[in-house]
């Protein structure tokens, strides 16, 4: 079923009770998508049409509500009695559409977007390929996996791993209980932190870049390409430091194991911290 909505009016599409929903809505450029799902997965795909297709699997008791006023397309579910049991969405959107997705019990994934993306999940995994300008991803209990961002990325979890691949732009990655893996990063501004987990960085180290990798209980591994110019500060309380290549300390600071050294002209800033794990510099 394809419906064209009159722009400027807030309209609500209420799918008649059934075993599912399959609706396509024409949208104008610049429309933002908002999906909130209490229970069930949200899968977002892209196409090159100015319309949004909403496919949803749900029980006959539940219904999918779609509201569009010309600026934001809102999708949620409701039930005749109590909370909806669970809805699995597949939403196909214009490739550049901005996305704001949230869910409580269920995974959320986006594939191929060139829009801004904001995702918040409580108990599900988050997986994104694409995104521009600003991509913000968070899960409380699940993993966060993202690749292909061109712009600022903020990826965080509480109790999961954060895995970032092929990003060009600022990267802020954080978790409490899990590893942070950053690979194929092209950025002058990187921050990765965890409390209980390892951190791995593999990517460029720009001459004007700032890179901070910090864990409490875990190892830090930083890949340092040949030709890097960086001032490196290593801080640990009871951990170790290893390097694939020789380094000369320029001024061992006081207190335990905190020291600095310079690679090349020392222009970039690398802060590597592990309270009780190993800190390693490796060649690609």
């Amino acid at each position, binding site marked *: 079923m394809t419906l064209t909505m009159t722009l400027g009016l807030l309209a609500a599409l209420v799918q008649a009770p059934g075993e599912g929903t399959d609706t396509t809505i024409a949208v104008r450029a610049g429309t933002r998508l908002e999906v909130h799902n209490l229970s069930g997965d949200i899968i977002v795909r892209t196409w090159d049409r100015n319309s949004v297709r909403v496919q949803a699997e749900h029980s006959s008791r539940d219904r999918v509500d779609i509201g569009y006023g010309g600026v934001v397309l809102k999708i949620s579910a409701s039930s005749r009695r109590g909370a909806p049991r669970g809805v699995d969405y597949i939403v196909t959107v214009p490739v550049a559409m901005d996305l704001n997705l949230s869910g409580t019990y269920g995974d959320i994934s986006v594939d191929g977007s060139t829009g801004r993306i904001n995702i918040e999940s*409580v108990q599900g995994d988050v997986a994104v390929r694409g995104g521009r300008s600003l991509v913000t991803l968070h899960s*409380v209990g699940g993993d966060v996996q993202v690749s292909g961002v061109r712009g600022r990325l903020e990826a965080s979890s*509480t109790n999961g791993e954060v895995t970032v691949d092929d990003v060009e732009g600022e990267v802020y990655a954080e978790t*409490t*209980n899990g590893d942070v893996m950053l690979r194929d990063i092209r950025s002058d501004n990187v921050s990765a932190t965890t*409390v209980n987990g390892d951190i791995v960085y593999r990517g460029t180290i720009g001459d004007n870049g700032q890179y901070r990798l*910090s864990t*409490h*209980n875990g190892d830090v591994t930083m890949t340092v390409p040949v030709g890097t110019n960086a001032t490196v500060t290593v801080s640990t309380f009871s951990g170790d430091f290893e390097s694939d290549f020789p380094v000369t300390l320029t001024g061992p600071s006081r*207190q335990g194991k905190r020291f600095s050294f310079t690679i090349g002209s020392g222009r970039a800033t690398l802060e590597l911290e592990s309270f009780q794990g190993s800190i390693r510099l490796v060649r690609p």
Partner: protein
Amino acid sequence: MTDQWTHRLSEYLDGELSATERLQIEEHLGGCPACRETLDELRVVVARAASLEDGAPERDLWPAVAERIGAARPEVEQPAGGRWRRLRLTLTVPQLAAAALALMAVSAGSVWLARPRRPIMQEAAAPPAAGLGVTVSPVAAVEGAYQSAVRDLERVLAEGRGRLDTATVRVLEQNLRIIDAAITECRRALAADPASPYLNAHLAQTMKRKLELLRQASRLVAART
């Protein structure tokens, strides 16, 4: 809540506004309790930070701190010789970490709790635990505000945990335990070396992470209300 004057409060505090702007902001303050409270918070943080031991900064972290309170805007960013520059010259990394922690502790009370902030502000404004013949770390100077914010947020979580599912509660509690263990280890290390810049900054950042997680938990509770 912010308005057009919120981001100028620090300049007002430092006497960097023009006479006209000063009059305008004072007129605004008269009718805006939120800005008055924010101004009070700024005074507390600046006073507390200024009371810490001076030292050469290792790098400029103040913009990030300022950003946390919404003070950093491109149009007012780091005028040469201006306020930020002066602060940069007087705050070390651990001091800034502590200041950031203090800011978060204060905002934890103001933003995430629908309750008065007076207890937090009173503790934050209390004099540091000096004069005991021991070195007081920068983090210790903001311990009161931190503990107060933690207590309030833990209370919100305790009162609202029934609205969260057991899996989410389990995740939150497990991670709070992980952070608490890290804080304990950090405090132990710091007790033996209270002047360590790394340990001070690391402790402040770990404490801040606990506040962030508690704030997140409070948000989840609020969302299920």
